[in-house]
């Protein structure tokens, strides 16, 4: 039964990818890419990587679709290309075939899928599975690896979100915003949308908070929760107009909060340096929190991650949709 689903997915995923490439209308291609992300979610779930699936659903299918649409809103949804230009396509074809050949050559020698004696399953994973709960008192293994064993990577990935926000903001920022007196008019086009968005948004935010706080016990954590919190803000910005969204969270404050999020993470990790310990060594907190030191520390760094990601998603959306002017949006 399961294998049938796997095979079905394996056929569907490339098909959907080809359809996304085939479509001339970029808006449809974006929607198809969203479907592609949902299929990938199923693939990850089938492999047992529920946290990855959750992230893919929140980021791949959710927020990045919104970003694409925001970009299309300011550019164009049609692509034109020269049908006679065959040479570049031939080069691309040869490059893709060569790359695919190399990848398949590499696959031929890999251990079987799910082989318990393969190096991956016999290597560091064994240590994580056997000792993670004893070390940290956190039931979700993925959170332990992310926020404790390989904590620096997560800190740097959060920094990457901050960099993306700052980069997009800096590139698109207009020095003197174009004066438009229609600041709030575009928001009032539909009562239904406005009311339903206002009704849904608190629930989205609440769910986001739950995902952040409950990342220790179930799939989720700072990244996913931050994205969900960010989508709540994006929804408000979409339905009520950018001016009222900016009243909720102004642009300078958003950038400061995003930097503060990483600062919470790195600052919490830097406390052990005072006691001549290693960076991000949460065990110095044992005098305060006892055996839950690592668990509580992970919650705090996840809050930092969520803050940065939330501001990142919101800020990237605001910059993209208004073409940097921060005046008018969807």
């Amino acid at each position, binding site marked *: 039964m399961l294998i049938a689903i796997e095979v079905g997915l394996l056929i569907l995923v490339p098909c959907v990818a080809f359809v996304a490439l085939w479509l001339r209308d970029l808006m449809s291609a974006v929607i198809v890419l969203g479907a592609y992300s949902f299929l990938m979610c199923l693939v990850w779930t089938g492999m047992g990587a529920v946290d990855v699936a959750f992230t893919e659903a929140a980021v791949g299918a959710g927020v990045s679709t919104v970003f694409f649409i925001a970009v299309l809103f300011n550019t164009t949804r049609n692509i034109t290309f020269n049908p006679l230009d065959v040479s570049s396509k031939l080069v691309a074809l040869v490059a893709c075939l060569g790359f695919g050949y*190399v*990848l398949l*050559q*590499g*696959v*031929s*020698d*890999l*251990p079987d899928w799910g082989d318990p004696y*393969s*190096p*991956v*399953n*016999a*290597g*560091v*994973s064994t*240590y*994580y599975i056997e000792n993670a709960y004893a070390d940290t008192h956190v039931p979700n293994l993925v959170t332990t690896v992310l926020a*404790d*064993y*390989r*904590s*620096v*990577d997560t800190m*740097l*990935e959060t*920094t*990457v979100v*901050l*960099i*993306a926000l*700052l*980069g*997009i*903001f*800096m*590139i698109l*920022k207009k*020095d003197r915003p174009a004066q438009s007196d229609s600041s709030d008019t575009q928001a009032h086009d539909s009562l239904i949308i406005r009311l339903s968005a206002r009704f849904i948004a608190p629930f989205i935010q609440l769910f986001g908070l739950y995902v952040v706080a409950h990342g220790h016990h179930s799939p989720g954590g700072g990244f996913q929760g931050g994205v969900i919190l960010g989508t709540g803000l994006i929804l408000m910005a979409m339905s009520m107009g950018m001016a009222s969204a900016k009243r909720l969270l102004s642009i*300078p404050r958003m*950038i*400061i909060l*995003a*930097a*503060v999020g*990483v*600062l919470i993470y*790195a600052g919490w990790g*830097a406390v052990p*340096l005072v006691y*001549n*310990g*290693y*960076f*991000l*060594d*949460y*065990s110095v907190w044992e005098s305060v929190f006892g055996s839950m030191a690592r668990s509580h520390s992970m919650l705090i760094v996840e809050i930092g991650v969520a803050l940065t990601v939330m501001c990142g998603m919101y800020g990237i959306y605001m910059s993209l949709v208004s073409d940097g002017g921060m005046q008018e949006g969807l």
Partner: protein
Amino acid sequence: MSSQWAFLAMGIPFFTALIMGSVGYAAPRFMRWIGATGITLAVFASIGLWSTVSTDEYVSYFFGGWLPPIGIALEVDRISALMVLMVHGVAALAYIFSLKALPNELPASKHPVYYTLYFLLISGFVALAVTGDVFNVYVLFEVCALSGYALLAMGGKKAYVPTFNYVLMGSLGACFYLIGVGYLFIKTGTLNMAHLADVLPTVFFSRSILTAFILITVGLFVKMALFPFHGWMPNVYTKAPVSTLCLMAPLGTKICVYVLLRVVGYVFSMEYMTNILAVQPIMMTLATLAIVVGTLYVVYHRHLTRIIMFIIVSEIGYMVGGIFLGQMDSVIGAVYHIAADALMTVTLVMVAGVVRHCLGGDAIADVAMMFRRLPTTAIAFVIVCLSVIGVPPMPGFFSKFLLIKGAFMSGYYGFAVALLIASLTAVFLFFRFFEGYFYMKTDNTAPSVIQEPWAYRIPLVVAAIGLVGFGLSFSYWYGFIKLALPLGLA
């Protein structure tokens, strides 16, 4: 605990960036002081790391207190310490330079964000030099690349399309590297470099490892702009603002060469490269071609910034060739040249920047005018030219000497010839600038001498003195690097 220096070298610029991001909007006046404090402390940290490594040879730092392969470790040997010294030294020069250069290029409202990204980029480069984990390298590539894209795109509208090309190529390179690391992980179950080096010999003859090697090296070649993957580099760098260029051009490609040395020399081991795969001839051909092609373009172009970019293309060929020659002297030469070339490039870029800002262009005629109007810049330019050509007391001579020696020892005469041709071309090229000066038509209204602002003069003078000093202390560095060479070489 002296190993704390290893973290501080990357941590200080990181925290500086975060503090800048948090207070930059509220109090833009303090940015300059925060930056100056941060870069000074970072230089101290790199000197501390250097002196620690000089006595202890090796420093390990375990994040979170988890020993590898469970956690992520920083592994600093003498080569990494030299790289950290190089990054912070160049970054300090570039920062001083940018204090004056940036206001000319960017409106003040963007400065807080710009400097936040600037320091994140510095911390990414340093972390790449000290990390001991192959996946961490990928994350750091992302940090460096994303902040680099944003900083390079600040050159205005004309910079957008080249930067977009760079985004595509850079993502492709990073993606190749990541897939290669994925294969390595599936085959070995570890991501730590030292542990990988222990485990890999048992699976040397696996096809997946071969694929991993190909993907990782090709990914790195794209990122370091080795010929034939260099297409993105000259365009994006010539359109970028000079203040970004001072940081990106010397360090962006060099640090990738360093990562290549780590991966090829320490993770896969020299033995795998020379004996099992026997890829040496292919790699040497690529390196030789890179030198030759870079040299040809250097002769062809007539703008200083663009000429510098193609000098970089051919210098990448020197270093990659030095690594793949697999001789003790050639690898020492390559490592020494990474640092020397970073210093040379930053000086050249600063000279080009001063000429562009003070004289309004960087064509050959403007550079010739520099000798008359900007004496300090002209002296720095002459010193760096001597080093690029390879005149004896300068660092360029020693690295070229070691590389040519290595080429003769392993029988790659073509590489040696390419190196000599590159030197001769450099002589030809720089004499073109001097010639422009001596045969310049002198109308009697002799243009007056311009005093460079202090923010231009200090880094230029320091860089020129640093170049001479780095060349004169060559024997010290030779012994310093020799002790950290990969197994099977020293």
